[in-house]
Protein backbone atom coordinates (compact mmCIF):
# COMPACT_ATOMS: atom_id res chain seq x y z
CA UNK A 1 0.00 0.00 0.00
CA UNK A 2 1.33 3.34 -0.90
CA UNK A 3 -0.11 6.68 -0.29
CA UNK A 4 -1.74 9.02 -2.61
CA UNK A 5 -1.67 12.21 -0.66
CA UNK A 6 -4.26 14.18 -2.46
CA UNK A 7 -5.70 17.32 -1.10
CA UNK A 8 -8.02 17.17 1.87
CA UNK A 9 -11.19 17.09 -0.23
CA UNK A 10 -10.71 13.85 -2.20
CA UNK A 11 -9.22 12.18 0.86
CA UNK A 12 -12.30 13.07 2.89
CA UNK A 13 -14.36 11.82 0.03
CA UNK A 14 -12.48 8.53 -0.05
CA UNK A 15 -13.34 8.10 3.61
CA UNK A 16 -17.00 8.79 3.02
CA UNK A 17 -16.99 6.23 0.21
CA UNK A 18 -15.36 3.84 2.64
CA UNK A 19 -18.01 4.39 5.29
CA UNK A 20 -20.78 3.85 2.76
CA UNK A 21 -19.11 0.71 1.43
CA UNK A 22 -18.63 -0.68 4.86
CA UNK A 23 -22.30 -0.25 5.58
CA UNK A 24 -23.12 -2.04 2.36
CA UNK A 25 -20.55 -4.78 2.41
CA UNK A 26 -20.93 -6.98 5.45
CA UNK A 27 -17.76 -8.92 4.69
CA UNK A 28 -15.74 -5.74 4.91
CA UNK A 29 -17.30 -4.62 8.18
CA UNK A 30 -14.74 -6.35 10.33
CA UNK A 31 -11.95 -4.47 8.62
CA UNK A 32 -11.94 -1.18 10.42
CA UNK A 33 -12.42 -2.78 13.79
CA UNK A 34 -9.52 -5.07 13.14
CA UNK A 35 -6.55 -2.92 13.90
CA UNK A 36 -7.18 0.48 15.36
CA UNK A 37 -3.98 1.47 17.12
CA UNK A 38 -4.11 4.02 19.86
CA UNK A 39 -2.91 7.34 18.55
CA UNK A 40 0.21 8.17 20.53
CA UNK A 41 0.99 11.66 21.72
CA UNK A 42 2.84 13.43 18.97
CA UNK A 43 6.50 13.91 19.98
CA UNK A 44 8.11 17.25 19.15
CA UNK A 45 11.18 15.58 17.66
CA UNK A 46 12.68 12.26 16.63
CA UNK A 47 16.02 11.28 15.15
CA UNK A 48 14.23 9.74 12.19
CA UNK A 49 10.78 10.69 10.89
CA UNK A 50 9.15 8.58 8.19
CA UNK A 51 6.31 9.91 6.03
CA UNK A 52 4.06 7.12 4.74
CA UNK A 53 3.43 3.61 6.09
CA UNK A 54 3.35 1.61 2.86
CA UNK A 55 5.79 -1.11 1.78
CA UNK A 56 8.68 1.37 1.75
CA UNK A 57 7.95 3.63 4.72
CA UNK A 58 6.92 0.94 7.21
CA UNK A 59 9.98 -1.15 6.31
CA UNK A 60 12.26 1.86 6.74
CA UNK A 61 10.79 2.63 10.17
CA UNK A 62 11.20 -0.96 11.36
CA UNK A 63 14.71 -1.43 9.95
CA UNK A 64 16.10 1.84 11.37
CA UNK A 65 15.00 0.59 14.80
CA UNK A 66 16.28 -2.93 14.23
CA UNK A 67 19.62 -2.06 12.60
CA UNK A 68 20.37 0.52 15.30
CA UNK A 69 19.58 -1.99 18.07
CA UNK A 70 16.68 0.28 19.10
CA UNK A 71 19.04 3.19 19.73
CA UNK A 72 17.59 5.58 17.12
CA UNK A 73 14.14 7.05 17.78
CA UNK A 74 11.66 6.73 14.91
CA UNK A 75 8.28 8.35 14.25
CA UNK A 76 6.09 6.98 11.44
CA UNK A 77 3.38 9.30 10.10
CA UNK A 78 0.52 7.43 8.43
CA UNK A 79 -3.13 8.49 8.16
CA UNK A 80 -4.66 5.05 7.54
CA UNK A 81 -5.58 2.84 10.50
CA UNK A 82 -4.24 -0.34 8.89
CA UNK A 83 -1.96 -1.51 6.11
CA UNK A 84 -3.83 -2.63 2.98
CA UNK A 85 -1.70 -4.35 0.36
CA UNK A 86 -1.87 -3.48 -3.33
CA UNK A 87 -0.21 -6.82 -4.18
CA UNK A 88 -3.03 -9.44 -4.10
CA UNK A 89 -5.73 -6.73 -4.23
CA UNK A 90 -6.62 -7.72 -7.80
CA UNK A 91 -7.82 -11.05 -6.36
CA UNK A 92 -10.41 -9.10 -4.37
CA UNK A 93 -11.70 -7.50 -7.58
CA UNK A 94 -11.91 -10.89 -9.31
CA UNK A 95 -13.61 -12.38 -6.25
CA UNK A 96 -11.17 -15.11 -5.19
CA UNK A 97 -9.75 -12.97 -2.39
CA UNK A 98 -11.17 -10.66 0.23
CA UNK A 99 -10.17 -7.44 1.98
CA UNK A 100 -9.40 -9.19 5.26
CA UNK A 101 -6.65 -11.23 3.57
CA UNK A 102 -4.83 -8.11 2.34
CA UNK A 103 -5.27 -6.03 5.50
CA UNK A 104 -2.64 -6.03 8.28
CA UNK A 105 -2.25 -4.20 11.57
CA UNK A 106 0.42 -1.59 12.32
CA UNK A 107 0.41 -2.58 16.00
CA UNK A 108 3.66 -4.61 15.90
CA UNK A 109 5.71 -1.68 14.67
CA UNK A 110 5.17 0.10 17.97
CA UNK A 111 4.79 -2.95 20.21
CA UNK A 112 7.78 -4.97 19.00
CA UNK A 113 10.01 -2.33 17.48
CA UNK A 114 9.27 0.82 19.45
CA UNK A 115 8.28 2.90 16.43
CA UNK A 116 6.10 5.83 17.49
CA UNK A 117 3.04 5.76 15.24
CA UNK A 118 1.40 9.09 14.50
CA UNK A 119 -1.91 8.82 12.70
CA UNK A 120 -1.96 12.02 10.71
CA UNK A 121 -1.04 13.55 7.34
CA UNK A 122 2.32 15.12 6.70
CA UNK A 123 1.14 18.43 5.33
CA UNK A 124 4.44 20.22 4.67
CA UNK A 125 8.14 19.97 5.42
CA UNK A 126 10.64 22.74 6.09
CA UNK A 127 13.86 21.10 4.89
CA UNK A 128 15.96 24.06 6.12
CA UNK A 129 14.71 23.93 9.70
CA UNK A 130 14.15 20.15 9.39
CA UNK A 131 10.59 20.15 10.70
CA UNK A 132 7.50 18.24 9.47
CA UNK A 133 4.14 19.96 9.90
CA UNK A 134 1.10 17.71 10.29
CA UNK A 135 -2.47 18.38 9.21
CA UNK A 136 -3.43 18.53 12.90
CA UNK A 137 -0.99 21.43 13.29
CA UNK A 138 1.63 19.50 15.29
CA UNK A 139 5.27 19.80 14.30
CA UNK A 140 7.97 17.14 14.50
CA UNK A 141 11.66 17.98 14.15
CA UNK A 142 14.01 15.39 12.63
CA UNK A 143 17.68 14.64 12.04
CA UNK A 144 16.88 12.39 9.06
CA UNK A 145 13.63 12.25 7.12
CA UNK A 146 12.34 9.36 5.00
CA UNK A 147 9.73 10.36 2.42
CA UNK A 148 7.68 7.40 1.14
CA UNK A 149 4.41 8.91 -0.10
CA UNK A 150 3.82 6.56 -3.04
CA UNK A 151 2.17 8.08 -6.08
CA UNK A 152 -0.33 10.82 -6.68
CA UNK A 153 -3.02 9.84 -9.18
CA UNK A 154 -3.18 12.67 -11.71
CA UNK A 155 -6.91 12.55 -12.34
CA UNK A 156 -6.51 15.66 -14.47
CA UNK A 157 -4.69 13.58 -17.10
CA UNK A 158 -8.15 12.41 -18.30
CA UNK A 159 -10.77 15.04 -18.95
CA UNK A 160 -13.91 14.43 -16.92
CA UNK A 161 -12.21 11.99 -14.52
CA UNK A 162 -11.90 14.17 -11.41
CA UNK A 163 -15.61 15.01 -11.18
CA UNK A 164 -16.73 11.42 -11.91
CA UNK A 165 -14.24 10.17 -9.30
CA UNK A 166 -15.49 12.66 -6.73
CA UNK A 167 -19.04 11.37 -7.28
CA UNK A 168 -17.82 7.78 -6.79
CA UNK A 169 -18.79 6.82 -10.36
CA UNK A 170 -15.25 6.09 -11.49
CA UNK A 171 -12.48 4.54 -9.41
CA UNK A 172 -8.90 3.60 -10.25
CA UNK A 173 -8.46 1.19 -7.30
CA UNK A 174 -4.72 1.68 -7.76
CA UNK A 175 -4.32 2.25 -4.04
CA UNK A 176 -5.91 -0.72 -2.30
CA UNK A 177 -8.78 0.05 0.06
CA UNK A 178 -12.28 1.39 -0.37
CA UNK A 179 -11.88 1.70 -4.14
CA UNK A 180 -10.93 -1.98 -4.44
CA UNK A 181 -14.32 -2.90 -2.97
CA UNK A 182 -16.13 -0.34 -5.13
CA UNK A 183 -14.57 -1.70 -8.34
CA UNK A 184 -15.55 -5.23 -7.30
CA UNK A 185 -19.13 -3.99 -6.89
CA UNK A 186 -19.08 -2.34 -10.32
CA UNK A 187 -17.98 -5.66 -11.83
CA UNK A 188 -20.74 -7.52 -9.95
CA UNK A 189 -23.32 -5.00 -11.20
CA UNK A 190 -22.22 -5.24 -14.84
CA UNK A 191 -24.69 -7.09 -17.10
CA UNK A 192 -23.60 -10.21 -19.01
CA UNK A 193 -22.49 -9.08 -22.45
CA UNK A 194 -20.95 -5.93 -20.97
CA UNK A 195 -17.49 -4.46 -21.49
CA UNK A 196 -15.05 -3.87 -18.61
CA UNK A 197 -12.37 -1.45 -19.87
CA UNK A 198 -8.98 -0.89 -18.23
CA UNK A 199 -6.92 2.04 -19.50
CA UNK A 200 -3.17 2.10 -18.80
CA UNK A 201 -0.99 5.23 -18.80
CA UNK A 202 2.46 5.48 -20.36
CA UNK A 203 5.20 3.93 -18.22
CA UNK A 204 6.53 4.55 -15.65
CA UNK A 205 3.54 3.95 -13.41
CA UNK A 206 3.02 2.00 -10.18
CA UNK A 207 3.20 -1.81 -10.59
CA UNK A 208 3.99 -2.47 -14.27
CA UNK A 209 2.25 -5.92 -14.50
CA UNK A 210 -0.68 -4.88 -12.27
CA UNK A 211 -3.13 -3.80 -15.00
CA UNK A 212 -2.59 -7.04 -16.95
CA UNK A 213 -3.06 -9.13 -13.81
CA UNK A 214 -6.27 -7.19 -13.20
CA UNK A 215 -7.44 -8.06 -16.74
CA UNK A 216 -6.85 -11.75 -15.91
CA UNK A 217 -8.78 -11.53 -12.63
CA UNK A 218 -11.75 -9.81 -14.26
CA UNK A 219 -11.67 -12.40 -17.09
CA UNK A 220 -11.57 -15.21 -14.51
CA UNK A 221 -14.77 -13.82 -12.95
CA UNK A 222 -16.48 -13.22 -16.31
CA UNK A 223 -15.71 -16.75 -17.53
CA UNK A 224 -17.64 -18.18 -14.59
CA UNK A 225 -20.46 -15.69 -14.24
CA UNK A 226 -20.83 -13.52 -17.37
CA UNK A 227 -19.26 -15.42 -20.30
CA UNK A 228 -20.75 -13.14 -22.98
CA UNK A 229 -18.79 -10.19 -21.54
CA UNK A 230 -15.36 -8.86 -22.37
CA UNK A 231 -12.31 -7.19 -20.81
CA UNK A 232 -10.84 -4.49 -22.98
CA UNK A 233 -7.24 -3.51 -22.17
CA UNK A 234 -6.48 -0.09 -23.63
CA UNK A 235 -2.77 0.53 -23.22
CA UNK A 236 -0.99 3.83 -23.93
CA UNK A 237 2.22 1.83 -24.27
CA UNK A 238 3.33 0.16 -27.49
CA UNK A 239 3.19 -3.29 -25.89
CA UNK A 240 2.50 -5.06 -22.59
CA UNK A 241 5.09 -3.50 -20.24
CA UNK A 242 5.79 -6.59 -18.07
CA UNK A 243 5.54 -10.39 -18.48
CA UNK A 244 4.13 -9.73 -21.94
CA UNK A 245 4.49 -13.17 -23.54
CA UNK A 246 3.07 -14.88 -20.44
CA UNK A 247 0.01 -12.63 -20.22
CA UNK A 248 -0.69 -12.86 -23.96
CA UNK A 249 -0.54 -16.65 -23.80
CA UNK A 250 -3.17 -16.66 -21.03
CA UNK A 251 -5.39 -14.22 -22.91
CA UNK A 252 -5.13 -16.34 -26.08
CA UNK A 253 -5.95 -19.64 -24.40
CA UNK A 254 -7.90 -19.99 -21.18
CA UNK A 255 -9.42 -16.54 -21.72
CA UNK A 256 -9.87 -16.73 -25.50
CA UNK A 257 -12.56 -14.28 -26.57
CA UNK A 258 -12.74 -12.73 -23.12
CA UNK A 259 -9.73 -10.39 -23.24
CA UNK A 260 -8.91 -7.97 -26.00
CA UNK A 261 -5.61 -6.06 -25.89
CA UNK A 262 -5.11 -2.80 -27.81
CA UNK A 263 -1.69 -1.11 -27.65
CA UNK A 264 -0.95 2.56 -28.39
CA UNK A 265 -4.29 3.69 -26.97
CA UNK A 266 -3.67 6.76 -24.85
CA UNK A 267 -6.84 7.70 -23.01
CA UNK A 268 -7.35 11.44 -22.63
CA UNK A 269 -10.95 11.68 -21.41
CA UNK A 270 -13.92 9.87 -19.91
CA UNK A 271 -17.62 10.52 -20.41
CA UNK A 272 -19.37 8.59 -17.67
CA UNK A 273 -22.89 9.61 -18.71
CA UNK A 274 -22.49 7.92 -22.10
CA UNK A 275 -19.98 5.27 -20.95
CA UNK A 276 -17.29 6.51 -23.33
CA UNK A 277 -13.50 6.67 -23.18
CA UNK A 278 -11.80 9.23 -25.42
CA UNK A 279 -8.33 8.73 -26.90
CA UNK A 280 -5.56 10.92 -28.23
CA UNK A 281 -5.77 9.27 -31.66
CA UNK A 282 -8.45 6.60 -31.96
CA UNK A 283 -12.26 6.71 -31.97
CA UNK A 284 -14.14 6.70 -28.66
CA UNK A 285 -14.66 3.32 -26.99
CA UNK A 286 -17.86 2.36 -25.16
CA UNK A 287 -17.70 0.41 -21.90
CA UNK A 288 -20.02 -0.56 -19.06
CA UNK A 289 -17.30 -0.32 -16.44
CA UNK A 290 -14.47 2.16 -16.98
CA UNK A 291 -11.42 1.45 -14.84
CA UNK A 292 -9.09 4.23 -15.92
CA UNK A 293 -5.60 4.29 -14.43
CA UNK A 294 -4.53 7.91 -14.65
CA UNK A 295 -1.01 9.17 -15.15
CA UNK A 296 0.97 9.19 -11.93
CA UNK A 297 3.71 11.14 -10.26
CA UNK A 298 5.44 11.29 -6.87
CA UNK A 299 3.09 11.69 -3.89
CA UNK A 300 1.92 15.24 -3.21
CA UNK A 301 4.02 15.93 -0.12
CA UNK A 302 7.20 15.07 -2.05
CA UNK A 303 6.22 17.37 -4.91
CA UNK A 304 5.29 20.17 -2.48
CA UNK A 305 8.69 19.77 -0.78
CA UNK A 306 10.41 20.32 -4.11
CA UNK A 307 11.82 16.78 -4.18
CA UNK A 308 10.38 15.92 -7.61
CA UNK A 309 13.33 17.27 -9.53
CA UNK A 310 13.31 14.64 -12.33
CA UNK A 311 11.21 13.86 -15.41
CA UNK A 312 9.60 17.26 -15.70
CA UNK A 313 8.70 17.41 -12.02
CA UNK A 314 7.13 13.95 -11.90
CA UNK A 315 9.61 11.89 -9.89
CA UNK A 316 12.14 12.42 -7.09
CA UNK A 317 15.83 12.15 -7.88
CA UNK A 318 17.96 10.21 -5.38
CA UNK A 319 21.61 9.34 -4.85
CA UNK A 320 21.11 5.62 -5.36
CA UNK A 321 23.84 4.51 -2.96
CA UNK A 322 21.79 5.80 -0.01
CA UNK A 323 18.47 7.00 -1.51
CA UNK A 324 19.21 10.48 -0.16
CA UNK A 325 17.36 13.12 -2.18
CA UNK A 326 19.22 15.04 -4.85
CA UNK A 327 17.12 18.07 -3.86
CA UNK A 328 17.42 18.21 -0.05
CA UNK A 329 19.98 17.14 2.54
CA UNK A 330 19.10 14.57 5.21
CA UNK A 331 15.97 13.63 3.26
CA UNK A 332 15.67 10.11 1.82
CA UNK A 333 13.07 9.17 -0.78
CA UNK A 334 12.07 5.54 -1.40
CA UNK A 335 9.41 3.56 -3.23
CA UNK A 336 7.17 4.50 -6.12
CA UNK A 337 7.90 8.24 -5.77
CA UNK A 338 11.50 8.03 -7.02
CA UNK A 339 13.02 8.43 -10.45
CA UNK A 340 13.85 4.79 -11.15
CA UNK A 341 17.23 3.44 -12.22
CA UNK A 342 17.22 1.32 -15.41
CA UNK A 343 15.00 -1.81 -15.13
CA UNK A 344 13.97 -0.93 -11.58
CA UNK A 345 10.20 -1.48 -11.22
CA UNK A 346 7.87 0.64 -9.11
CA UNK A 347 6.80 -2.30 -6.94
CA UNK A 348 6.08 -3.03 -3.29
CA UNK A 349 8.98 -5.48 -3.12
CA UNK A 350 11.34 -2.89 -4.61
CA UNK A 351 10.14 -0.28 -2.08
CA UNK A 352 10.84 -2.78 0.72
CA UNK A 353 14.35 -3.40 -0.67
CA UNK A 354 15.10 0.30 -1.14
CA UNK A 355 13.88 0.99 2.41
CA UNK A 356 16.53 -1.34 3.84
CA UNK A 357 19.32 0.37 1.87
CA UNK A 358 18.10 3.77 3.08
CA UNK A 359 17.67 2.54 6.67
CA UNK A 360 21.21 1.11 6.71
CA UNK A 361 22.58 4.37 5.28
CA UNK A 362 20.75 6.42 7.92
CA UNK A 363 21.98 4.18 10.73
CA UNK A 364 25.51 4.43 9.30
CA UNK A 365 25.39 8.23 9.07
CA UNK A 366 24.00 8.63 12.59
CA UNK A 367 26.72 6.25 13.91
CA UNK A 368 29.65 7.94 12.19
CA UNK A 369 30.09 5.05 9.73
CA UNK A 370 30.47 5.39 5.96
CA UNK A 371 27.48 4.16 3.96
CA UNK A 372 27.67 0.71 2.37
CA UNK A 373 29.78 1.05 -0.80
CA UNK A 374 27.99 -1.88 -2.48
CA UNK A 375 24.25 -1.90 -1.68
CA UNK A 376 22.10 -4.56 -3.34
CA UNK A 377 18.39 -4.81 -4.17
CA UNK A 378 16.24 -7.76 -5.13
CA UNK A 379 12.76 -7.81 -6.60
CA UNK A 380 10.28 -10.64 -7.01
CA UNK A 381 6.88 -9.83 -8.40
CA UNK A 382 4.12 -12.41 -8.73
CA UNK A 383 0.95 -11.98 -10.81
CA UNK A 384 -2.04 -14.29 -10.54
CA UNK A 385 -3.52 -15.32 -13.89
CA UNK A 386 -6.56 -16.98 -12.25
CA UNK A 387 -7.57 -17.82 -8.67
CA UNK A 388 -4.63 -20.19 -8.14
CA UNK A 389 -1.93 -20.02 -10.79
CA UNK A 390 0.77 -17.34 -10.80
CA UNK A 391 3.73 -16.12 -12.85
CA UNK A 392 6.74 -14.10 -11.68
CA UNK A 393 9.45 -11.72 -12.75
CA UNK A 394 12.60 -11.53 -10.60
CA UNK A 395 15.70 -9.32 -10.68
CA UNK A 396 18.87 -8.52 -8.73
CA UNK A 397 20.23 -4.97 -8.77
CA UNK A 398 23.76 -4.00 -7.66
CA UNK A 399 24.98 -0.45 -7.08
CA UNK A 400 27.67 0.42 -9.61
CA UNK A 401 29.92 3.03 -8.06
CA UNK A 402 31.50 4.19 -11.33
CA UNK A 403 28.06 5.05 -12.73
CA UNK A 404 26.40 5.95 -9.42
CA UNK A 405 23.33 3.92 -10.24
CA UNK A 406 21.84 0.46 -9.77
CA UNK A 407 22.16 -2.01 -12.62
CA UNK A 408 20.80 -5.53 -12.89
CA UNK A 409 23.51 -8.14 -12.35
CA UNK A 410 24.45 -9.72 -15.67
CA UNK A 411 23.00 -13.21 -16.08
CA UNK A 412 20.60 -12.90 -13.14
CA UNK A 413 16.84 -12.49 -13.01
CA UNK A 414 14.12 -13.79 -15.28
CA UNK A 415 10.53 -14.86 -15.72
CA UNK A 416 8.37 -17.93 -15.18
CA UNK A 417 8.32 -20.43 -18.02
CA UNK A 418 4.54 -20.79 -17.62
CA UNK A 419 1.78 -20.14 -15.07
CA UNK A 420 1.73 -22.74 -12.30
CA UNK A 421 -0.07 -23.75 -9.14
CA UNK A 422 3.30 -24.01 -7.43
CA UNK A 423 4.03 -20.35 -8.08
CA UNK A 424 0.54 -19.50 -6.83
CA UNK A 425 1.45 -21.13 -3.51
CA UNK A 426 4.79 -19.30 -3.44
CA UNK A 427 3.02 -16.03 -4.19
CA UNK A 428 0.86 -16.38 -1.08
CA UNK A 429 3.91 -17.24 1.04
CA UNK A 430 5.74 -14.29 -0.49
CA UNK A 431 2.91 -12.04 0.68
CA UNK A 432 2.84 -13.49 4.20
CA UNK A 433 6.61 -13.22 4.68
CA UNK A 434 6.77 -9.83 3.02
CA UNK A 435 4.04 -8.35 5.22
CA UNK A 436 5.87 -9.73 8.26
CA UNK A 437 9.12 -8.15 7.03
CA UNK A 438 7.36 -4.80 6.53
CA UNK A 439 5.28 -4.74 9.71
CA UNK A 440 6.21 -7.36 12.36
Amino acid at each position, binding site marked *: MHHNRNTRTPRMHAHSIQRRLLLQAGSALSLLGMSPYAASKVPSRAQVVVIGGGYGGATAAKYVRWLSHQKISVVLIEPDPSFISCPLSNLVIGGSGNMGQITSSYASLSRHHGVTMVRDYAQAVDTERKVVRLLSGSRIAYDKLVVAPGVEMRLGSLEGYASAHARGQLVHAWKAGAETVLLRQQLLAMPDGGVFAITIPLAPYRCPPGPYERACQVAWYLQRHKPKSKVLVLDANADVTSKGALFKEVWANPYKGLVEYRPNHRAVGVDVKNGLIQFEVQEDVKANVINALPEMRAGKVAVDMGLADQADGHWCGVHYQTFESTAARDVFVIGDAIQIAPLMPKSGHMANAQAKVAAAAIVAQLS*GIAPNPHPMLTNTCYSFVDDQRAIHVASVHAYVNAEQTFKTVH*GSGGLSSEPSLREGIYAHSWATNMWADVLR
Partner: protein
Amino acid sequence: MTKTSLSWTWTLALTMGLGLGLTATSAQAQTSQVDKAQALYVTALAATCAGCHGTQGEAVKGSSIPSLFGRPKDDLIQQLHDFQSGARPSTVMGQLAKGLSDAQIEQIATYFAAQR
Protein backbone atom coordinates in the same frame (compact mmCIF):
# COMPACT_ATOMS: atom_id res chain seq x y z
CA MET B 1 35.24 4.82 4.58
CA THR B 2 34.88 8.25 3.08
CA LYS B 3 37.48 10.93 3.72
CA THR B 4 35.03 12.85 5.86
CA SER B 5 34.28 10.06 8.27
CA LEU B 6 37.94 8.97 8.36
CA SER B 7 39.09 12.42 9.32
CA TRP B 8 36.27 12.67 11.87
CA THR B 9 37.32 9.37 13.40
CA TRP B 10 40.98 10.37 13.43
CA THR B 11 40.21 13.72 15.03
CA LEU B 12 38.21 11.97 17.70
CA ALA B 13 40.86 9.31 18.18
CA LEU B 14 43.72 11.81 18.32
CA THR B 15 41.88 14.03 20.76
CA MET B 16 41.22 11.07 23.00
CA GLY B 17 44.73 9.69 22.57
CA LEU B 18 46.53 12.96 23.26
CA GLY B 19 44.19 14.03 26.01
CA LEU B 20 44.42 10.79 27.95
CA GLY B 21 47.76 9.56 26.70
CA LEU B 22 46.13 6.31 25.60
CA THR B 23 47.23 5.60 22.04
CA ALA B 24 45.79 2.09 22.19
CA THR B 25 42.28 3.55 22.56
CA SER B 26 42.47 5.23 19.16
CA ALA B 27 43.35 1.99 17.44
CA GLN B 28 40.57 0.16 19.25
CA ALA B 29 38.04 2.86 18.39
CA GLN B 30 39.03 2.54 14.74
CA THR B 31 38.76 -1.23 14.75
CA SER B 32 35.43 -1.11 16.45
CA GLN B 33 34.02 1.33 13.88
CA VAL B 34 35.32 -0.85 11.03
CA ASP B 35 33.74 -3.94 12.63
CA LYS B 36 30.47 -2.10 13.14
CA ALA B 37 30.47 -1.00 9.52
CA GLN B 38 31.17 -4.50 8.23
CA ALA B 39 28.44 -6.00 10.41
CA LEU B 40 25.96 -3.40 9.16
CA TYR B 41 26.83 -4.04 5.49
CA VAL B 42 26.49 -7.82 5.86
CA THR B 43 23.19 -7.49 7.73
CA ALA B 44 21.90 -5.22 4.94
CA LEU B 45 23.05 -7.72 2.30
CA ALA B 46 21.30 -10.60 4.08
CA ALA B 47 18.20 -8.38 4.42
CA THR B 48 17.78 -8.56 0.63
CA CYS B 49 16.64 -12.17 1.28
CA ALA B 50 14.10 -11.10 3.91
CA GLY B 51 11.40 -9.91 1.50
CA CYS B 52 10.62 -13.55 0.62
CA HIS B 53 12.24 -15.51 3.48
CA GLY B 54 11.29 -13.22 6.40
CA THR B 55 13.25 -10.81 8.61
CA GLN B 56 16.55 -12.44 9.70
CA GLY B 57 15.56 -15.27 7.36
CA GLU B 58 12.80 -16.37 9.74
CA ALA B 59 9.79 -17.31 7.59
CA VAL B 60 6.24 -17.14 8.96
CA LYS B 61 4.96 -20.50 10.23
CA GLY B 62 3.45 -22.58 7.41
CA SER B 63 5.35 -20.71 4.67
CA SER B 64 6.17 -22.72 1.54
CA ILE B 65 9.28 -20.53 1.19
CA PRO B 66 11.80 -21.98 3.67
CA SER B 67 13.38 -20.32 6.70
CA LEU B 68 17.09 -19.51 6.51
CA PHE B 69 17.40 -18.61 10.21
CA GLY B 70 20.10 -20.68 11.92
CA ARG B 71 20.63 -23.05 8.97
CA PRO B 72 24.11 -24.58 8.73
CA LYS B 73 26.53 -22.44 6.74
CA ASP B 74 27.86 -25.20 4.49
CA ASP B 75 24.34 -26.28 3.61
CA LEU B 76 23.33 -22.74 2.60
CA ILE B 77 26.46 -22.30 0.47
CA GLN B 78 25.84 -25.63 -1.27
CA GLN B 79 22.18 -24.83 -1.94
CA LEU B 80 22.94 -21.40 -3.39
CA HIS B 81 25.59 -22.85 -5.71
CA ASP B 82 23.18 -25.61 -6.77
CA PHE B 83 20.52 -22.99 -7.51
CA GLN B 84 23.07 -21.06 -9.59
CA SER B 85 24.13 -24.10 -11.60
CA GLY B 86 20.61 -25.46 -11.97
CA ALA B 87 21.60 -28.68 -10.15
CA ARG B 88 18.67 -27.76 -7.91
CA PRO B 89 15.76 -26.75 -10.16
CA SER B 90 13.71 -23.75 -9.08
CA THR B 91 11.22 -21.11 -10.18
CA VAL B 92 12.67 -17.90 -8.69
CA MET B 93 15.69 -18.81 -6.57
CA GLY B 94 18.07 -19.79 -9.39
CA GLN B 95 17.42 -16.45 -11.10
CA LEU B 96 18.18 -14.55 -7.88
CA ALA B 97 21.18 -16.71 -6.85
CA LYS B 98 22.85 -15.86 -10.17
CA GLY B 99 22.98 -12.26 -8.96
CA LEU B 100 25.27 -13.16 -6.04
CA SER B 101 29.08 -13.46 -6.06
CA ASP B 102 30.88 -16.27 -4.23
CA ALA B 103 31.98 -13.77 -1.59
CA GLN B 104 28.40 -12.57 -1.07
CA ILE B 105 27.15 -16.16 -0.79
CA GLU B 106 29.78 -16.79 1.88
CA GLN B 107 28.73 -13.66 3.81
CA ILE B 108 25.01 -14.43 3.57
CA ALA B 109 25.50 -18.06 4.66
CA THR B 110 27.71 -17.01 7.60
CA TYR B 111 25.10 -14.46 8.66
CA PHE B 112 22.09 -16.81 8.62
CA ALA B 113 24.04 -19.64 10.26
CA ALA B 114 24.85 -17.29 13.15
CA GLN B 115 21.22 -16.27 13.81
CA ARG B 116 19.86 -17.71 17.05
